[in-house]
């Protein structure tokens, strides 16, 4: 097994606050890897460093054999890492279809080729019938899916999902989890997810990293991690076990 993404001792400070403190982990090709932790544990900061939105103060990030820390977000995307945002950010005045076409243009030069790719993805995610609607007119679950579709349109090797099921009803969670699982199984897409909803983590992730106040306190399979006393203490609380 080869590491697709390898994060080595990265740190990020915001003035006095150490948001991420020397965190290391590896994501293997084809796996679904989850990062969990309480609010303010540094998950999103970690994510933003991988996606190029923030530059790490220390440490290195290697993707597909090449260092990517310090690259701009658009360059990171073209290398093969696509992300979603915790608070979804579709292009509101563009149609659902055009939102996805923008993503698909990352690796396809012609607009009509990109449109074909967009259609295929929209069908897979049940958004095809709404393709002419403006993105601003979609409901939250649909916008969440659109966010994932737009990211997938860039043909990533690694998909970064930032709390993609937060705010969804349990049935919607299961539906999205199902599609993601399918994608992972069928096309071998590697997924790195930040998640609060343990229901989704338990259903999807092969391995879990637990962050607490910027440091990694546990790593392992979901089953092992939720039994770890340190994790229960800091994050899950008694009732979750």
């Amino acid at each position: 097994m080869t590491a697709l993404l390898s994060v080595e001792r990265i740190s990020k400070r915001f003035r006095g606050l150490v948001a991420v403190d020397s965190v290391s982990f590896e994501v293997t090709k084809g796996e679904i890897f989850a990062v969990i932790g309480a609010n303010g544990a540094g998950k999103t900061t970690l994510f933003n460093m991988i996606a190029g939105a923030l530059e790490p103060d220390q440490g290195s990030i290697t993707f597909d054999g090449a260092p990517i820390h310090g690259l701009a977000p658009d360059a990171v995307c073209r290398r093969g890492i696509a992300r979603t945002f915790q608070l979804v950010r579709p292009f509101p005045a563009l149609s659902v279809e055009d939102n996805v076409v923008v993503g698909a243009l990352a690796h396809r030069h012609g607009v009509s080729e990109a449109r074909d790719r967009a259609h295929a993805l929209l069908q897979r995610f049940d958004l095809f019938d709404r393709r002419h609607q403006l993105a601003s007119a979609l409901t939250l679950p649909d916008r969440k899916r659109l966010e994932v579709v737009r990211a997938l349109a860039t043909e990533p090797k690694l998909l970064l999902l930032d709390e993609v099921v937060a705010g969804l009803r349990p049935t919607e969670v299961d539906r999205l989890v199902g599609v993601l699982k399918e994608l992972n199984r069928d096309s071998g897409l590697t997924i790195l997810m930040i998640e609060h909803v343990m229901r989704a983590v338990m259903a999807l992730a092969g391995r879990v990293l637990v962050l607490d106040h910027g440091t990694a306190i546990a790593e392992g399979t979901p089953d092992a991690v939720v039994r770890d006393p340190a994790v229960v203490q800091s994050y899950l609380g008694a009732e979750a076990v």
Partner: protein
Amino acid sequence: MSAASLTRLGGDDSRRIVVLLALLLVALLAAPWVVNDYLLTVLILILYSAFTGQAWNIMMGFAGQLSLGHALYAGLGAYVSAVLFVDFGIGPWIGFLAAVPVAVACGAVIGFLAFRFGVAGVYFAILTIAFAEFARIGFDHLAVVNASAGLFLPVHQTAHNDVWHLRGDPTMFYYVILAASIAAFVLCRLLLKSRMGYYWLAIREDEQAARAAGVPTFRYKMYAVMISAALTSFAGVFYAFFYNNLFPEQVFNIGRSIEMILGPVIGGIGTLFGPVLGAFVLTGLAETLNAVMAAVGLDIPGAKQVFYGICLLVVIVALPEGVWPPLARRLGLTKAKP
């Protein structure tokens, strides 16, 4: 500010749009045989405004970058081509080819400074005003262009129209600016349907999300400024040869910049028809007002500006998207569901 119908307009063209365009084109082509000299001059002003509006719209309507200093690019086009003509006898078309790199370079400097150092939104708009003002003050003291005394192009009576040197009667100028407006319209449509257009709209809608989706935002914002500057410089060339006199105080005046944006704002920012419709509505009504005031013997200085202000107010309050998007929906020219 985002125009809801924009993307659908760029999508599948309904036949109605084609019919509408064809009718408009025939009417405009036939106009010189029908209208008198005064109305022809009004039409030239309208098309000039449609052209500059279209050029400005690339930056603001497509890429979401507000420029309030577009007089800079028109002024550069005017001065470069006029100086080449007056001092070296070089015709306006070659002059235009010389003006484009000058305008593009200026646009590139402004764009680079702003986009490299994160000057965005209102601050970007102020930067564009500042550069136009630099140019106004600079040219006012520049001896090569006769400074504030103004630059005059030689006018000589010719029996026939000379398109190559842009010397001739209003009908010739009318067809030149009509051709330019059509070219600008077609160019904008092609751009909007291309990869560049999609990337611009993505930047306009959400720059961070665009970057995350792989859009190299810096580069595409630079393209927007440079293409817009190049197009606008042609308007300046036309201006110089149509009016035959240039004063820095006038051509680089912020009022010129504002006039350029009124058409698209009233017609509909980010749409292809907005700048055209806005030009007809605004210039058409303003000239009607002029004619009526002249007929009843009223002479109120500044009446046109007040009128522009009222138009802008009415549109912003009643039709925040501009006149075109709701009209297009009413006419069934768009499939957009806002």
